């Protein structure tokens, strides 16, 4: 597969316009990656600011208003500008066409449009920050959000616009998976990351419109005074919560399903072993995506909804837990009788298993209505969703970046530094968020700028470790991009981990502008480590 080194999508064609008007899914993916990581750093700095304020009780660093702005922006940026758009947008865009053997996604122009819609929406978010922030929490609960004098409208407008980008990307991916697979690549031969993106896309196109409508209603209420959610105008704030969580619970699966897909790739490749329970993982992705639509009420256990609703929502919530649990066991059993290498992606995958298991199990506590009433809106919930969102999604995202980095960009990072950073992320993360479970159990409410003395010890402990977490993530990402600066190139035909899916076996690193030199022929499944030996090649 070794051919002219200069013919790759990064260097050909050249010029700024060839990037701004590119229809190449890989370039669009790279632009998503860079903007996503910038927002990730921005959200991370805000988080460190919050932890600094919470290191001790009282307002010693920032005022209540500033704290409320910071925590709102942290949540909104991380969720709406980084996790939801950036992971499918970056890794999904770069890899999906390669994995199905296509030259590009089904609608390349639509793909570029998605990126520009995302950027346009992001401008509103940046405007919000420059113009003094927004202080409602990322949930925008009414009637506070209809009465707040902060920038609720620019922020919700930004989220509304970014929603379209999500919908169009989802549509594009679904069409690509259905129509662009090469002959012989049947559904059950697809890499599981493709299944995960397919499930994610289904949720994106079905759930996002509900969020868009909710945001429009909120803006109508503010502009025209139509009473929908504000009781002062005759509306109902609980209706807002139903609308909001009808999107935002499925959105949790938009965030976590791609992570499941990444882990389903990393573990078999780095264990050189056929994945355990392929069909189960594939179908559970779809069933989790579906059940995710039926459990939104568990965010509202203290809102005063009827006892019957509480029982039903608690019951259905556990149906998400069971398939997720079986998935975790499948990933672990994949290593059985394999050849496991402790590479940076594998370290991230193993820490994902550790952290996501804690995140999932603490969800069981919150699903039990009687216990949730004590834990609702306390730090227990904060710790729980960070274990899922950061310990799960972001750790998997970092693992995926390390896994596909040499493939996507043709350079290899320093693996020792990458491993040290992976350990730092793991330790820093647990140090930051594990104490928060205890804080929540002891009654510390969330979204507090100050707190009483009984919580000092755990809060300062959490702040200390958050610094280590921040440094580790920062250096992990710098280490990746440093490989560009050092020009530590891998061979164009290299396959450093011995991957078996099409992106490893049939394209060069970095890939050709048209992905494949010749039409790829399907030869073996993505996990056929029991049938074919694919050599690990890195440098000559």
């Amino acid at each position: 597969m070794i051919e002219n080194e200069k013919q790759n999508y990064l260097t050909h064609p050249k010029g700024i316009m060839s990037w701004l008007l590119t229809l190449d899914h890989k370039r669009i993916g790279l632009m998503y990656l860079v903007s996503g990581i910038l927002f990730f750093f921005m959200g991370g700095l805000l988080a460190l600011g919050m932890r600094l304020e919470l290191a001790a009780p009282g307002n010693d660093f920032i005022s209540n208003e500033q704290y409320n702005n910071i925590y709102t922006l942290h949540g909104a940026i991380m969720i709406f500008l980084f996790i939801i758009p950036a992971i499918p947008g970056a890794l999904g865009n770069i890899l999906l066409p390669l994995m199905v053997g296509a030259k590009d996604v089904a609608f390349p122009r639509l793909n570029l449009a998605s990126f520009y819609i995302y950027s346009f929406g992001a401008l509103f978010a940046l405007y919000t920050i420059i113009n003094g922030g927004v202080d409602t929490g990322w949930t925008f609960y009414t009637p506070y959000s209809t009465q707040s004098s902060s920038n609720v409208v620019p922020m919700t407008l930004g989220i509304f616009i970014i929603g379209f980008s999500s919908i169009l990307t989802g549509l594009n991916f679904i069409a690509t998976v259905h129509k662009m697979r090469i002959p012989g690549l049947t559904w059950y031969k697809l890499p599981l990351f493709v299944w995960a993106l397919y499930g994610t896309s289904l949720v994106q196109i079905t759930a996002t419109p509900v969020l868009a409508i909710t945001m429009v209603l909120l803006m109508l209420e503010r502009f025209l005074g139509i009473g929908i959610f504000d009781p002062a105008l005759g509306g109902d704030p609980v209706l807002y919560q139903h609308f909001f969580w009808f999107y935002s619970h499925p959105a949790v699966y938009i965030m976590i399903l791609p992570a499941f897909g990444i882990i389903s790739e990393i573990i078999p490749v780095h264990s050189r072993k056929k994945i355990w329970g392929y069909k189960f993982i594939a179908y559970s992705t779809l069933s989790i995506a579906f059940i995710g639509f039926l459990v939104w009420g568990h965010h509202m256990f203290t809102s005063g909804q009827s006892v019957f609703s509480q029982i039903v929502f608690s019951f259905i919530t556990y149906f998400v837990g069971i398939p997720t649990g079986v998935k975790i066991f499948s990933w672990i059993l994949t290593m059985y009788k394999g050849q496991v290498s402790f590479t940076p992606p594998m370290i991230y995958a193993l820490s994902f298993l550790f952290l996501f298991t804690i995140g999932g199990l603490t969800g069981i506590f919150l699903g039990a209505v009687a216990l949730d009433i004590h834990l609702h809106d306390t730090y227990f919930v904060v710790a729980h969703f960070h274990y899922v969102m950061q310990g799960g999604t972001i750790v998997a995202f970092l693992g995926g970046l390390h896994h596909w980095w040499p493939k996507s960009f043709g350079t290899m990072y320093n693996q020792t530094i990458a491993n040290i950073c992976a350990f730092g992320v793991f330790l820093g993360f647990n140090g930051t968020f594990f104490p928060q479970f205890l804080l929540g159990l002891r009654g510390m409410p969330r979204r507090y700028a100050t707190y009483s003395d009984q919580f000092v010890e755990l809060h300062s402990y959490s702040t200390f470790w958050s610094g280590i977490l921040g440094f580790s993530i920062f250096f992990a990402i710098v280490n990746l991009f440093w490989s560009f600066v050092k020009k530590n190139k891998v061979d164009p035909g290299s396959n450093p981990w011995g991957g078996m899916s099409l992106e490893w076996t049939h394209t060069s690193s970095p890939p050709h502008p048209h992905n494949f030199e010749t039409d790829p022929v399907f030869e073996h499944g993505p996990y056929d480590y029991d049938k074919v030996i694919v050599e690990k090649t890195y440098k000559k």
Partner: protein
Amino acid sequence: MFDWLTEFFFPKQVSTFASDIDNLFYFIFYSSLVLFLIVVIGMVYLSIRYRARKDEPLRLTSSKDHSNLLESLFFIIPLILVSITFVWGIRSYLKMVIVPDDAIEIKVTGVSWFWTFDYPDGGQTLNELVVPSNTPVKLVLSSKDVLHSFFIPVMRSKMDCLPNRYNVMWFDATKEGVYDIFCTEYCGTGHSAMGAQVIVMKPAQYEEWASELGADDDSIPLDELGARLYTQKACNTCHTQDGSALVGPSFLQTSQMYEQERVFDDGTSTVIDDNYVRSSILEPQTQIVAGYQGVMPTYQGLLNDRELDALIAYIKSLNGDSQI
């Protein structure tokens, strides 16, 4: 026997259903711990046992990718555990929603950023909920403005306060004492200061307290009464007495500026006197001090004339105190 553990994880158990909820927690906790250890030990064991040795050639690995026995176990054991959790969660929950008929009813109102409590025999307290022990107490909750949520950790109970409908919660306190109340639904600048206390008294003591409630504090000098009201009526949530600005201007500043001009955000100004202070308490939205947000709720109906006089006297006394 698990007392030290309960102390470690939870605040005290004060309501009748607290121990049941804590036990549900321990059930889930130990089941989760077992599942978690299986995951971690399995993960560590398999990854080390099957690690690629140095210079080991790549080989075809096992094609084993399913085991009916193991998969059934992974399905059935968690299913049994979550079924128990679900049923336990619902049974305990029903105990928390079915209010005993003989419960005394107290009206709780959340206002940004304090709580008021109206008692069945008349009388009202602010940020201090007084209840008798070993008696069911029913709270009827609502809000005057945005959403709030009323959380008493020691009772393991919490309920949102909505501006347009009433929610109900109840508890039966088993131990006398003073315990924290928090607001757990974000409600703006003063959210983290919107705390209160529940004071659990012996029933006889409560009766005595309730009969005295609302009686005039005529015997106390005005400025001392004002000093007491400063915390009781939650002025301290937003106004300091040491000159530093919080959500609102410090009382000390107001005190030092007595007989001087104060500028408002619409450019007008007025001389600070007793009438200004009185109207700032009763109609806080009419004149907003420049540099601050007009977020203070009205105290109309929450303070009687003597209490207003007391607060005015107290504010005036601050200046003198600081000069000593």
